[in-house]
């Protein structure tokens, strides 16, 4: 199995490395930053995930910038779509802009790469609105268009979180955007880590967003071993059978003989010691038996 997985891994790596040239070392950085997100997933997703860079904008905000270098092809085009937010049941208003490169594949599919996000700061009213949300443990809602080429597409994709989950030092947020070609299926929105329950009222120290973004597209189902593979496996199996089974320990093999033997020995030992106690040692066996029988 290990071999198989390795093979699969190498294979996928090979496929993807041809399209994304400089991926493999940056993947680890991604993993570090985003903990376990997709970390234990089969390989294909990781690569997909890494293809999307998450780089919150840096005008006044703290977060890091990471850049991806990949040769832009002529097929690529830039797209922009806005993030809108709402406080409780208020109307949606712009809150930030995502910009990305739309990569068109030869087979007709489209994928987003190089996603960047610039978050607008809260205005004074928005801060007040957010404080109210925090007080009431209400929902902070965001939405994205469901199609990035022709927003808003079919309908907006909405996600929401209890406002009290966001504040840490600053306001930590975490987006996972599930893509299907140029369509956004859903967005998971929330704090990057755990959200304690019961939720405590806490104002953020800094009113700036610390955003993390991940793009995700669907992963392919793992295949049952196909017949060609099974042949290989069959070969392995034969090999394995030729190989002698691992030697079992002496005790494991012969315990059923050893235990009665031990009992017999013990019995004999006590008998001998009993005999030694008997003062009359040299008598005939027959009478001895009689004696013992009588004693009973």
């Amino acid at each position, binding site marked *: 199995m290990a071999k198989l997985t390795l093979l699969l891994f190498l294979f996928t790596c090979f496929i993807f490395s041809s399209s994304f040239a400089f991926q493999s070392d940056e993947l680890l950085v991604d993993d570090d930053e985003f903990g376990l997100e997709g970390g234990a997933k089969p390989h294909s997703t990781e690569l997909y995930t890494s293809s999307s860079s998450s780089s919150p904008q840096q005008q006044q905000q703290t977060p890091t910038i990471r850049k991806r270098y990949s040769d832009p092809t002529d097929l690529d085009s830039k797209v922009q779509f806005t993030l809108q937010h709402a406080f409780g049941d208020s109307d949606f208003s712009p809150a930030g802009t995502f910009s990305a490169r739309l990569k068109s594949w030869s087979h007709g599919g489209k994928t987003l790469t190089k996603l960047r996000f610039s978050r607008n700061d809260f205005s004074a009213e928005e801060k007040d609105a957010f404080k109210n949300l925090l007080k009431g443990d209400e929902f902070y809602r965001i939405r994205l268009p469901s199609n990035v080429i022709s927003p808003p597409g079919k309908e907006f994709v909405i996600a929401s979180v209890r406002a009290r989950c966001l504040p840490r030092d600053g306001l930590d947020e975490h987006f996972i955007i599930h893509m299907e070609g140029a369509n956004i299926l859903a967005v998971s929105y929330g704090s990057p880590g755990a959200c304690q329950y019961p939720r405590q009222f806490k104002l953020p120290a800094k009113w700036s967003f610390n955003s993390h973004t991940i793009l995700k597209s669907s992963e392919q189902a793992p295949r049952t071993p196909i017949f060609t593979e099974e042949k290989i496996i069959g070969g392995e*199996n034969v090999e394995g059978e030729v190989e002698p089974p691992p030697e079992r320990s002496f005790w494991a093999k012969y315990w059923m003989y050893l235990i009665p033997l031990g009992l017999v020995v013990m019995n004999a030992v006590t008998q001998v010691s009993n005999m030694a106690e008997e003062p009359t040692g040299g008598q005939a066996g027959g009478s001895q038996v009689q004696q013992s029988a009588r004693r009973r």
Partner: protein
Amino acid sequence: MAMAIRVFLLLLIFLSSAIVSFSLYEDQVGLMDWHQRYIGKVKHAVFHTQKTGRKRVIVSTEENVVASLDLRLGEIFWRHVLGTKDAIDGVDIALGKYVITLSSEGTTLRAWNLPDGQMVWETSLHSAQHSKSLLSVPTNLKVDKDYPIIVFGGGYLHAVSAIDGEVLWKKDFTEEGFEIQRVLQPPGSSIIYVLGFLNSSEAVVYQIDSKSGEVVAQKSMVFPGGFSGEISSVSNDKVVVLDSTRSILVTIGFLDGDISFQKTQISDIVEDSGKAEILSPLLSNMLAVKVNKRTIFVRVGGEGKLEVVDSLSDEIAMSDSLPVADDQEAFASVHHEGSKIHLMVKLVNDLDTVLLRESIQMDQHRGRVHKVFINNYIRTDRTNGFRALIVMEDHSLLLLQQGAIVWSREEGLASVTDVTTVELPVAKDGVSVAKVEHTLLEWLKGHMLKLKGSLLLASPEEVVAIQELRLKSSGKNKLTRDHNGFRKLILALTRAGKLFALHTGDGRIVWSMLLNSPSKSEACERPNGINLYQWQVPHHHAMDKNPSVLVVGRCGSDSSAPGVLSFVDVYTGKELSSSDIGHSVVQVMPLPFTDSTEQRLHLIADTDGHVHLYPKTSEALSIFQREFQNVYWYTVGADDGIIRGHAMKSSCSGETADEYCFSTRELWTVVFPSESEKIISTLTRKPNEVVHTQAKVNTDQDLLYKYVSKNLLFVATVSPKGAGEIGSVTPEESSLVVYLIDTITGRILHRLSHQGCQGPVHAVFSENWVVYHYFNLRAHKYEVTVVEIYDQSRAENKNVWKLILGKHNLTAPITSYSRPEVLTKSQSYFFAQSVKTIAVTSTTKGITSKQLLIGTIGDQILALDKRFVDPRRTLNPSQAEKEEGIIPLTDSLPIIPQSYVTHSLKVEGLRGIVAAPTKLESTTHVFAYGVDLFYTRLAPSKTYDSLTDDFSYALLLITIVALVAAIYITWVLSEKKELSEKWR
């Protein structure tokens, strides 16, 4: 530590079940399973009065069953269940030996041998368009002449030979706007008259030679008013139609190819006018019209003159007319009066002559009479006798003869829509339990017999006696709760809106109840049941309170129709109360809260996006207010491809002053792009499922925590092109995507796409895994995929020291707003069979390993161990993995013939499987429904916690007695010997 012990125990169970292959011995059949055969609501009935053969009736039903029933006992001689899309349009008998059925909108014609139901021939007819279909089998055939069967369907008129099903000729009537209404074959003539309407305003009559199919003559005539389409043929050359305003009856005569219209204003013949309706029964020279709820019999005179003969205000059901002696025709009518029904057979020509008048006491819970079919026979005194087959509102089928119900069949049970199980009452002192316990002597005798059987000493007669004894095993059919929880009531709601309580012991109907509309209004006389919910399950007051169920019904088929709630006492079968709730019912959500009387709180969502709380008590409201912030719900829009999550917002503002009504707000959406994905299946876990172990131990002594959340939704989508039949698309065009979505936050936890795969998807969701079945177009095979989801956020709790020192987060409340760290494992396997439904066994504590219950295309249920669909199966499992019970990986799942729980039986038209736990951890009730019902008890890991039914207590007793005696005897002997030794 307790966890570790439990895990160890679980492991033990796994190991002990490693060699289980479920099967049963021949003599165990019927011990704990039962099987009931049904046919469904009867649509057509054809009596067959063969002189030599036994009396039978041929019926076709709404469940697409054609069956031959014994007229004396109501038993099924033979039956055939056609496919779900193969609806029967007509049934008749041809040549006196074949049953002819026309199905699938007039495209399939089949002949079945009358005595044994073997198929004689099958012909598929060419079809070009959707149209209504007609079957015309010539009557009074002379054996030497082969008159063809005339079939119209799909725009073509076919003549088919009754002998071998060969299509003799066909005629194209696919002309635009032309609709064939009647095909008439005057007896003895070789001309067929075909009457049709062109654009509902022009009557066209074709005369066709029945030998060659050539049109001999064609006449047409325009009717200015237009026809409504309701038609009744009154004789061989006349039909009566309603015009499009439904106020004029038009008699169309087409004698000798000439068309003549004769108009009669309905207001001219009856005083009170109104919209008229032609009733379906075919009476000779007469028709029945319904005007203003009155049934009016109109006689058609020789020149097309209409005159009213009789007018009845009761709602009555009528049969077609039937020739009796002396060129007379008779028909039957049934009407209700109180708890009785009155059956009358009258002559058509002379309505005052009543040949038969009977009144029969009828169970109120059968509702009204829907259909009547009559048949005559010669009595012993050589007069005409009549028997009537009636179909009631609850779909039951009854045979009336000589003023009594000869037999009845509960055909409503062929269309079960929802099932739940409830406990029986606790056995109390003073409550007389059915006398089943017998004397000690009999008990001992029985056990001696069993002993003989087990020692292989029994004679054949005794073996039979033993088998009988086991089948009638004493306590099985009592109406009280038993220690093992084997006796239960299965509540089944049928499409007709009737609730049945079936006993698990033998499947008998304990009680049945037809739902009533509380308002008795015109619009909603009989609500149709949608779903069944456990309303009140008393635990604290189990001795003095009866449990009750909630039946949610709806007035009309539209989803915006107002709903009806009905509360039914489970032990007595009486309706406690029912109410018109005044809003529609889209979704019913049982909440995990109960009030002080142990009534469960339910939320009902309506079409306006409001939710309503039930029961409407202040206590329920206060409980709900406490949890107001934590109540979420979701809706699946299968049409627009959007799943929406909602939270409670506030009380309904303004429009209603209803404090139990709440408005909601939208929290999240998942929008599937309409050009690439279409929702075909959604599924959640069963809310009452018990998960015993939260963790799974790996072979390398590692722990994996199951992601056990009740708020997971499984969604399967296919590309819109691939939503059709299997094989209608190429693998490149179709893909299947499955999702696991958290319904609180709308997060997609898992997403997996299967390229080149297609629905239909059948799935089962239990604990932390989903198993789903679909078709792989590339491999041309069905596949089963398993997805298991594990929680990584608790992964660090593996340290024993942390557990001991309490530094773990296992008891911390879990919130969906934390970012989930999940790990999914999945694996696909080929599965050789097509599947109708999948379920999973469930036990009280969830310790016993699970089996998948797969309803196969052959209408059987296959029990497949969950271990076969374990994603951790590897090609060469290590020794440790083998010990854990991991099976080496294969590319397909095995189908072991012995593991069919239905053994040799078939649950025809299988639609659903329900599993419910017994009190005994090892066993589970399994109930499958379709056209048939099937029940059995399963023990997925064998009954490790109880002795088997046929355990011989007598043998045990005898052994103990013998041992004691032996000890005593040897003791005495040794005493004696010792004494003699001492005396020596």
